[in-house]
């Protein structure tokens, strides 16, 4: 069952406290971020209903918001999500080649997840790193000045981390 821990519930309360009384719906977007982090990197209908119940709003109000913003995953995603920017400024610096390279290296298309559930590749629109293009977002971090070698490094680092955690 979807439920925040006691600690997280305190965090939820502090989020709600940022707004005047009766305006707790304002906490919806931060709360959905928190829920996505906590419950497997995506928002299931159950998760969204839970978030709605915390704020005392109708489930449809949560669905409307969750489907509007591009950062919420409404389907399960891989452990590492590569969100590569392909808008104008990044395109000028060769983002399409980087996307092509990631596709062939991981053997997946844009929007797909590798069979081992490790990597998901997405293309996204401008992330505000145009001077450091080409770039991608991984979790909350930006990876900038991408080259093929750097992509290899990133993929290897993800795999290493995975091995270490699975050994431990």
């Amino acid at each position, binding site marked *: 069952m979807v439920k925040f821990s006691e600690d997280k519930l305190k965090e939820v309360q502090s989020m709600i406290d940022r707004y*005047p009384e009766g305006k707790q*719906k304002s906490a919806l977007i931060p709360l959905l*971020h928190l829920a996505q982090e906590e419950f497997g990197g995506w928002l299931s209908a159950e998760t969204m209903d839970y978030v709605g119940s915390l704020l005392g709003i109708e489930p449809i109000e949560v669905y409307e918001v969750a489907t*509007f913003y591009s950062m919420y995953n409404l389907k399960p995603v891989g452990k590492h999500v590569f969100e590569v920017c392909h808008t104008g400024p990044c395109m*000028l610096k060769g983002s399409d080649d980087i996307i092509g390279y990631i596709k062939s290296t991981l053997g997946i298309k844009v929007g797909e997840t590798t069979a081992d559930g490790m990597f998901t590749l997405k293309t996204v629109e401008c992330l505000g790193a*145009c001077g450091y293009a080409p770039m991608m*977002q991984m979790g909350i971090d930006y990876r900038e000045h991408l080259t093929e070698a750097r992509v290899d490094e990133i993929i290897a680092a993800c795999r290493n981390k995975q091995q270490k955690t699975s050994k431990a």
Partner: protein
Amino acid sequence: MAKKLLLEKDHVEGIRHFDVYRREGGYAAVEKALKMEPAAIVEEVKKSGLRGRGGAGFPSGLKWSFLAKPEGVPRYLVCNADESEPGTFKDRYLMEFLPHLLIEGLIVSSFALGSNRTYIYIRGEYAWIVGILEQAIAEAKQNGFLGKNILGTGFDCEIYVQRGAGAYICGEETALIESLEGKRGNPRIKPPFPAIKGLWDCPTVVNNVETLAAVVPIINMGGEEYAKIGVGRSTGTKLISACGNINKPGVYEIDMTISVEEFIYSDEYCGGIANGKKLKACIPGGSSVPILPANLLLTTAKGEPRLMNYESLSDGGFATGSMMGSGGFIVLDEDQCIVRHTLTLARFYRHESCGQCSPCREGTGWVEKILTKIENGKGAISDIDLLWDIQRKIEGNTICPLGDAAAWPVAAAIRHFRDEFEWHVNNPELCLTQNHGLAHYADPIHVPA
């Protein structure tokens, strides 16, 4: 070297932290402002001639003076940190390296406007900056610059950081307010404007990060002194985020008297076109503003050198000019394809349209499809005229400026590079393997050595 007002201290070790920022003279503006009358602060900002740095360039002091002040109703200041315009990353730089400058500007502005609860709405992708800002807020609070009874003046103020979740449209102030209320980022129909009915239906001012940071030097030096920097109605300094095919992409603070040519070719700024290529075109103010070919970028239609300021960049209107916009300076070299570049922007606007009003919802998708067709060598000459007609029917007919933002890049690309579109149509196979190169009229008139 031009005078820096915002980024002067950006490379001081530890400037992110309160102690260092304070030692370097930080929070003097708060101390000064809290002894002034709020109306006097608004007056200083008016005198400074500061114009909104988010893109529209509306005089900030004037915007502040529109704020309604009904009895017993709270007023809100909201900082627009939803920086999402392609080519723009100046606010990110400012918040990442000088968080206290923004916080200081916010405290002064909150006091001027009477906001006891101030929100920073930051784009969701800048997640790591949320931590930086929250730390700065906590430090300011520890040192008595935020919270209850600031500096013993009786003024209470809290600043909260709210993360968005991926929507360009939330940079539009009423969409931002909707999003802050926990709703979809649908822009509101105006009037009423936020100054009358904004966040939770209360009077609200929404200002860009750079605008609010600029309040700090304005208070420190006085509005009149600030207005002496720059030229004409382009007062003060402006952050320009330069990207694309240049040697030194990055964020630069300029005073608005330098020429575009100097900005591109001087080593102090962009350092020239990368890899020894030639300049083909440039979008000087973020992806929404019209693209200009090299010759019109460097000189105006009257033959005068074009300067990096509001008036000069828009000289000639859309026929031969562009706009200062958000200061997102995107440079294209001779190897770049205008059609493809325009297509990526069209895709961006289709992706970011909220879908509320019909011209934008339907038009942006249609434009993208036709551009895809032309880019892939499947277009017809009539498609170019069709594109022109579609953008014309989107522009000005939508609820919010996203419609215009989506229409202008397409219009400007056709206006100045129609021969390249026609080349795509007439060379359907060649255009898949090679680019058109420089437009014949895009040869730079003069390239400094």
